[in-house]
C-alpha cells in the first residue's frame, strides 16, 4: 500500500478515536433530573392529610388533563419560599395542584397551611418517603407537571417566577 494512503488511514483512525473520546467525555455523567420525563406518573395510594380514612390515589388524576404535583414539608425552609408562587398558580392561574406531604408530622403540615394558605386541591401523605422515590425525587421541594397522566416537566428546588411562567407556557 502506498505510504500516502497509510498516513491517511492512520490519520482518519486517530480522528475517529478522538471524536469517540470527546463524545464520551461530553456525555452527561451527573445526576439527570429528567429521567422521569415522558414517563407515566407511578400508581399511588396515599393517606389524605385532612382525613385519615380517605385515600388519595391515582384516580384523582382521572379527567384532569393538566395538574401540578408538588412535594413539600412544613420543616422545609425552601418550601416556605416557594409557597407564594404556588398560591398564585392556584388563585390567579387556576392550576390544579396536588400536594405530596413528605415525611412530615400532620399537625405541623396543617399549621403550615393555616399560616401560609393552602394551594392544594388534595394532599397525599408520604410519611416514609417511598412514593417520592417512585417519582425519582430525592428531597423537598420538587414540582412535577403531569399532562394526561404523563410527567412532562420536573423542577428540583423551590419554584420561582420563571418556573411559574414555564408551567403556564406548558398549559397553553
Amino acid at each position, binding site marked *: 500500500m502506498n505510504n500516502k494512503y497509510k498516513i491517511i488511514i492512520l490519520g482518519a483512525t486517530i480522528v475517529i*478515536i478522538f471524536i469517540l473520546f470527546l463524545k464520551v467525555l461530553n456525555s452527561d455523567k*451527573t445526576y439527570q433530573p429528567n429521567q422521569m420525563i415522558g414517563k407515566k406518573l407511578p400508581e399511588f395510594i396515599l393517606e389524605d392529610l385532612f382525613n385519615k380514612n380517605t385515600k388519595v390515589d391515582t384516580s384523582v388524576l382521572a379527567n384532569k388533563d393538566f395538574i401540578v404535583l408538588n412535594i413539600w414539608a412544613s420543616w422545609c425552609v425552601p418550601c416556605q419560599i416557594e409557597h407564594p408562587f404556588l398560591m398564585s398558580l392556584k388563585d390567579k392561574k387556576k392550576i390544579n395542584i396536588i400536594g405530596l406531604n413528605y415525611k412530615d408530622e400532620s399537625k405541623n403540615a396543617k399549621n403550615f397551611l393555616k399560616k401560609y394558605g393552602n394551594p392544594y386541591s388534595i394532599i397525599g401523605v408520604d410519611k416514609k418517603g417511598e412514593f417520592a422515590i417512585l417519582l425519582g425525587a430525592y428531597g423537598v421541594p420538587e414540582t412535577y407537571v403531569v399532562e394526561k397522566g404523563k410527567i412532562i416537566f420536573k423542577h428540583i428546588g423551590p419554584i420561582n417566577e420563571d418556573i411559574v411562567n414555564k408551567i403556564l407556557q406548558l398549559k397553553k
Partner: protein
Amino acid sequence: MKKFFFVIILFILSLNVVHANEDLKNKIYKNVRCIVCQGQSIYESNSDFAIDLKKLISKKLDNGENEKQIYEFLISRYGEWIVYNPRFNLNSLSLWLLPFFIFMIGGFLIFRLNKNKKR
C-alpha cells in the same frame, strides 16, 4: 437426640441464609450512589435519602426481587448515575476499547519506525 441435631442443623442453615442476604444487601448498598452526598455510596451515608433507599432496597429483596431488578428500578428513576457499576452500553464499550486501539496504533507506529531504522 436426632431431633436435637436436626434443630441445630436447621438453625445453622438459617444463619447462613440470613448472612447471605445481608451480604447481598451490603453489596447493593455499596454499588448505589448517594446522589445527595459527595462521593459516598448509600452504604457509607446516613443521609435521609440513603436511609430511605436502603429501606426500599431491603423491602424489595424481601419481596423476592433480585439484584438486577433493583438496579433497573433505580436507574429508571434516577438514571445511570445512581449506580457505581454502570450497565454495559455503547459509551462504556468505547471507553473499554479506546485504550486497546491506542495501544494498537502506538505498537504499529513503533514497529514501522523500527523497520525504517533497520533499512
